[in-house]
């Protein structure tokens, strides 16, 4: 009996240990060049290859490595995201400076770790405002990019009825929604707009809810909406198939140019455009900023700085491209202001 218990305890231990490492960080160190610049990057859950947000950051890091001759190291958190602080400490201990944390969820963690390493520059992409001096926060003016895809949707809609599916009710997602609504109303003040959030408040439950997104999108399409903008992380995996299942229905992607990343011709056919967040540009600019000034400042990137934009891949919006660019020019020169909240 005693032996059995011991074997059992051992098995459980091994199982737990296995689970800990398989979910853990996978690190890949790269000796990119001989320069002194050592850039560390900590991805959000999903890591390199997620097809959207992290991949864009990874593309930026690749450029940094190639063009700025920097040494780079990248780490990914486990799928619960519970070891973010450890990743940042590991990068700092290995002498990386600056350290780029990708994603909103790093906000608080980075503040904590940055206080332990006051001489290292930290950057949080998409983070919430920080009072720690060595933490810079780079955000996007998503409302500006969303304004443009809202205008695209209103111009392309045959039913004058469009929809929005958000991952939650956070300030971030509200920015997407606000821009989308303003863009659509700028084209057609009478347009009907549906809004559905998959999860409440700041909950993470809406980022991978393919079932929920498909049910919500199907309902909107059945109710007459013909274009839906999904800003809900991986939940596009539900709303895009819903569009593909019905005739003459469209979807709008987010973060990456999803026409290029979705990988299925059937789904490509329904991706009208994407609101792209140029995380890659921001990564490269931040590192350049560090090289030139020795530090990185908090800032936000809009259409002017090519931080956000709309994609034309697939050629579905060629006919209205010039009108959208007209709005873009107006936003850039300041004659058209887009509010970040309704």
């Amino acid at each position, binding site marked *: 009996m005693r032996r059995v218990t011991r074997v059992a*305890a051992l098995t459980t231990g091994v199982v737990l240990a296995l689970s800990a490492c*398989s979910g853990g960080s*996978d690190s890949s160190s790269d000796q990119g060049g001989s320069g002194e610049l050592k850039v560390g990057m900590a991805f959000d859950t999903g890591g390199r290859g997620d097809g959207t947000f992290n991949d864009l950051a990874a593309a930026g890091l690749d450029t940094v490595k190639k063009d700025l001759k920097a040494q780079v190291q990248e780490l990914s958190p486990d799928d619960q995201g519970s070891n973010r602080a450890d990743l940042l400490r590991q990068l700092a201990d290995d002498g990386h400076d600056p350290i780029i944390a990708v994603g909103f969820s790093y906000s608080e963690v980075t503040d904590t770790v940055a206080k332990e390493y006051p001489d290292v520059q930290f950057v949080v992409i998409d983070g919430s405002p920080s009072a720690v001096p060595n933490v810079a926060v780079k955000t996007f003016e998503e409302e500006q990019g969303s304004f443009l895809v809202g205008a695209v949707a209103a111009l392309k809609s045959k039913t004058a009825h469009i929809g929005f599916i958000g991952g939650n009710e956070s300030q971030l997602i509200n920015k997407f929604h606000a821009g989308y609504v303003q863009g659509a109303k700028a084209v057609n003040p009478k347009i009907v707009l549906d809004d559905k959030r998959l999860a409440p408040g700041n909950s993470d439950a809406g980022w*991978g809810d*393919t079932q929920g997104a498909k*049910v919500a999108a199907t309902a909107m399409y059945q109710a007459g909406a013909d274009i839906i903008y999904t800003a809900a992380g991986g939940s596009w995996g539900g709303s895009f198939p819903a569009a593909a299942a019905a005739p003459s229905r469209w979807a709008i992607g987010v973060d990456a140019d999803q026409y290029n990343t979705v990988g299925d011709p059937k*789904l490509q056919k329904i991706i009208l455009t994407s609101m792209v967040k140029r995380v890659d540009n921001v990564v490269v600019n931040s590192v350049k900023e560090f090289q030139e000034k020795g530090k990185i400042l908090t800032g936000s990137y809009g259409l002017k700085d090519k931080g956000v934009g709309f994609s034309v891949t697939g050629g579905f919006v060629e006919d209205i491209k010039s009108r959208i660019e007209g709005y873009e020019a107006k936003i850039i020169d300041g004659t058209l202001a887009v509010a970040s909240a309704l």
Partner: protein
Amino acid sequence: MSTSVGAAGPAPQGTGPAKSPGRSGPSPRRGPLAPGGRTRRLLVATALGLLALSIARVMADEPVLTSSGTMTAVLGLSLPIALAGLAGLVSERAGVVNIGLEGMMILGTWGAGYGGYQYGVWGAFLGALLAGTFGGLLHAVATVSFGVDHIVSGVAINLLAAGAVRFLSELLYKGVPGGGPTQSPTVRGGVSTFDLPVLSSGPDLLGRAEDTGLPVVADLAGILRGFTTDLTVFAVLGLALFPFFAFFLWRTALGLRWRAAGENPYAAQSLGVDVYRMKYLAVLTSGALSGLGGLFIVLFSGLYKEGQTGGRGFIGLAAMIFGNWRPGGVVGGSLLFGFSDAVRLRSSGSGGVLALFLFAAILLAALAVRQLARGHRLHGAALAGIATAAALTWSGLDSLPNEVTTMTPYIVTLLVLVISSQNLRMPTYDGVVYRRGEDH
């Protein structure tokens, strides 16, 4: 839908007294439709439920309550939960608590994603089955062979599964178009669906009846049409599993041994039942069924995405407890959850969810009247109080905050659990580690 499944199962909704484990035979037969008979009671309850739903739909003017679109969503949302519940049931009936359902379901979604990407829908089916069964095997080895605490092993499997699928995705989807560390490419060849001919497609008789908007008629048509459109072969197969297990566990010799392992393994052992083998069989089956639950999540949208189970394995566990460890009850619990979730997701604004309050008020009022008529004053008064509160919520509020609407399915489940928990009875040796020859 619930009618046919419940009617085929010998043990619907946990209202009757719990059976003693040794009695496998049916209670004395009086014909299924005799007064007080189970089938008749169920039919009456279903009819009353439909009536209440119809009244709520007309009063609140919210077609979303009974539209065919909602019911199709109910089927899609309920099936994975119901299968997770059934998976928990078959395991716990043999005495092994399985809170690793979520993990096995995660393995199932991954297996379905990979199999589907490689070989199409049948590949997805096999992949889900194998991956889920593997999770079951881990749990069986840990709990049955090594006597690990069932909860500890279950938690470990949940953690292990989440890590393992990430690892496998990073390994196998590198550079694959549409694939990545958190997702699979879409299922090869797509997922084909069919509608029931004549009634739900072509002449679409049910669709026409639904369009009339008549009370009860339109509602019934909407429900039937919703459950007979966008079907997959696997959905039909999945539905058939409930009557199958109801029959198998309560009407066959093997099923009796299976349940005996959960009710009193030492008695079973003394009668020559190989309890270890029964438990292994049960936990492996449980893994396979959880995997199938994962399959339905993947087929619903046609690809694997990390986190898409979203705790449905745990909700399945709740559905199992709600259903008093019986197949008919599991179906009921899952439908309840899927229904409130579908209404929340499909209604524009929160009108649909508010209408659910009205529906609940009507049902509770009916229950209160019954309790009062039987002389249970306290019980009846309490139910009437809740009914009034629900009715006031509906009439007094124009909208609900999103926090509340997204919580609806959980609130409903909790409420029903509270109300019905009086009659629940789990298998006697559920969760108790069994060692051959160690009885006292």
